[in-house]
């Protein structure tokens, strides 16, 4: 089992009310960014990752967002480059580079090759379409998002594996001289993993490419349904999906006492957390969704039912409304815990909860997710406890449950037994109390 650590590298010094006012992290004016504070935080986050490497985490997971205090890693390859040199052992897992928003995929191929070189072959690149807001922040035409994604993916792999120089005359990308000198150390190219929020289109695409699919803190039941969709497609393609094909990211908050851990966990909801607020005009820019996804959304948009709209159907118009909104948002905290969307506790109480998640989903890849404003010493203590006490237990459970990771079993290399795909995970173990909507 491959166990990673992840954080959004948030800028929590932003006044929370500014986020509530517009019910979105994206779009908060950057006048609220203090460069001194930002510099301090970015270095703390890098130090934290180095600490994780020393504690024995298998992977250091990074991601990327633009124009938002939710995540300061606007160019995660820069952070990955620092970690490539400053860490010794852990994989540097990028989930993922938003390739449709990168105007020059060849440059990205070169950046990643350099990171793989410097890290001594520890890079795991991944690709995402990018959230809706990323298309706006990078002025990447969302109507061509899928086409950019597919073509940029093919171009990057070609740049890494096809002898140059060659020409690339695609629909969206055009190069007269593809011949990157620095190529990845890992051959034929670094292993690729794909994160997602269980969109069927992406799951299908991963199954076709035999790429491990990492579900990002989604509810257990629909996550397992998607894993099984992957496994079914894999079966149709002639292979059996195993734990090495799946990953799961989960917010986990560990402390010396239950109370402290719960306090840390509650802060995860700062500013609405990662999923409570979403402005449709930024989440769903034109053409970003497939026709099918638009149809699914149609009924919701007619009766606004986006996350957070259940709490208040308009932006707060005065302070009383804002405070009431904040109160109702933090009031959702017990529900998060009930649905296993977040796990809190001491190492002793956390491990059985994690075991349940691992038994249900049977992922070969797991990442802890730590976020929310907290004093540095509490963050560091959480990481220390996770690394020293929880991580070894996870490895043991992984062994016991046969949760092979992509470095132990090549994803897509398993044979079908009797020519038929077997279901993955254990839907029967999803406790009634953890079944989400």
């Amino acid at each position, binding site marked *: 089992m491959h166990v990673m650590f992840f954080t959004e590298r948030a800028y929590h010094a932003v006044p929370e009310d500014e986020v509530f006012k517009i019910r979105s992290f994206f779009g908060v004016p950057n006048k609220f960014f203090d460069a001194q504070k930002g510099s301090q935080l970015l270095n703390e986050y890098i130090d934290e990752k180095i600490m994780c490497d020393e504690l024995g985490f298998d992977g250091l997971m990074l991601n990327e967002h633009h124009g938002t205090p939710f995540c300061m890693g606007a160019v995660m390859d820069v952070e990955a480059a620092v970690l490539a040199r400053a860490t010794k052992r852990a994989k540097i897992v990028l989930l993922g580079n938003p390739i449709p928003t990168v105007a020059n995929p060849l440059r990205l191929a070169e950046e990643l090759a350099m990171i793989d070189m410097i890290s001594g072959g520890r890079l795991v690149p991944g690709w995402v379409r990018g959230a809706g807001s990323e298309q*706006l922040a990078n*002025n990447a*035409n*969302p*109507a*061509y998002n899928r086409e950019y994604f597919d073509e940029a993916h093919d171009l990057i792999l070609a740049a890494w594996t096809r002898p140059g120089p060659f020409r690339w005359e695609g629909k969206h990308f055009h190069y007269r001289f593809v011949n990157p000198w620095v190529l990845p150390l890992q051959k034929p190219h670094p292993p690729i993993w794909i994160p997602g929020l269980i969109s069927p289109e992406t799951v299908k695409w991963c199954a076709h490419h035999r790429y491990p699919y990492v579900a990002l803190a989604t509810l257990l039941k629909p996550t397992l349904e998607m894993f099984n969709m992957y496994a079914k497609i894999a079966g149709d393609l002639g292979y059996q999906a195993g734990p090495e094909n799946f990953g799961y990211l989960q917010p986990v908050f560990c402390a010396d006492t239950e109370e402290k851990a719960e306090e840390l966990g509650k802060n995860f909801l700062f500013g609405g957390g990662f999923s409570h607020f979403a402005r*449709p*005009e*930024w989440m*769903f*820019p*034109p*053409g970003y*969704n497939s026709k099918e996804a*638009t*149809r699914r*959304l*149609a*009924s919701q*948009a*007619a009766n606004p039912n986006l996350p957070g709209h259940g709490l208040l159907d308009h932006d707060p118009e005065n302070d009383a409304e804002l405070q009431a909104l904040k109160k109702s948002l933090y009031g959702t905290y017990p529900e998060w815990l009930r649905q296993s969307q977040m796990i809190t506790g001491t190492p002793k109480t956390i491990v059985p909860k994690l075991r349940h998640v691992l038994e249900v989903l049977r992922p070969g890849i797991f990442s802890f997710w730590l976020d929310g404003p907290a004093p540095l010493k509490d963050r560091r203590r959480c990481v220390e406890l996770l690394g020293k006490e929880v991580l070894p237990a996870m490895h043991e459970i992984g062994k016991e449950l046969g949760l092979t990771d992509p470095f132990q079993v090549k994803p897509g290399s398993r044979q079908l037994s009797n020519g038929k795909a077997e279901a993955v995970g254990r839907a029967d173990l999803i406790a009634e109390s953890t079944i989400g909507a």
Partner: protein
Amino acid sequence: MAETSHQEETFRVGETELRVIKGGQGKPLLVFHGELGFPGWLQWLEALAKKRTLWIPLHPGFGKTPMASWIMNMRDLGAFYARFIREQKLAPVDVIGFSLGGWLAAEMAVANSGQFGKMVLVGAAGLKPPSGEIMDMFTMTARGYLNANVIDSRNNPEFAKLFGGEQTPEQFEAWEDARAETARIAWAPYMYTQSMPELLANVAGLPTLILWGKQDPVTPLSAGELYHQKIAGSKLVTFDNCGHMPAVEKPADFIKAIESFLG
């Protein structure tokens, strides 16, 4: 009074089945709808249908006519309709274009002004406004954009008839189709052709009427004035206390201006 009958017909243009709403009687008048699709049978259509046969094509990718993936910019869309006009033997046809549809008409006139008899541009996109900016529909919801098109979305009966009440799932889907296709064509630069001021020299000789709301919040009046300046012999008519939809906001004045121009 009963509406003039109008119905949808299908015409093949290359590989695409183009849906066209047709109604009225007399000489054809081609109507190019804007970036949120064909809004519906408005008063001015009813008035014009008495003397003209209205041809209102529903642009590819806007829902009813399927998307044509080769159409990636306004020149491509213009070439699509040039073929349609040629194959239907409509040239020289009078044309009226609204907003994005005005840009389309201008782009076609620039390529071949002989395919049109007379041209009417209404709050047309296509030019970078010398002052002000074109309102960005892509950072708003379709509904928010629509409401912001007119000066008073709450107290306009024509607007209420078309867009009032709760947004239906069908409306949402149609608007999302329209937004997606507009993005394919007009994402950046947003809603204009960089070289348009120079290209408009090729429109000389085509009788052109430019209609604009003085307070247009979507395409600022400065763009209308630039069209007027660059198209030799064109006429600019503005409507006071009017936004981006004079056909909806000032129907009587709008109809009068068009009728007196088209004759």
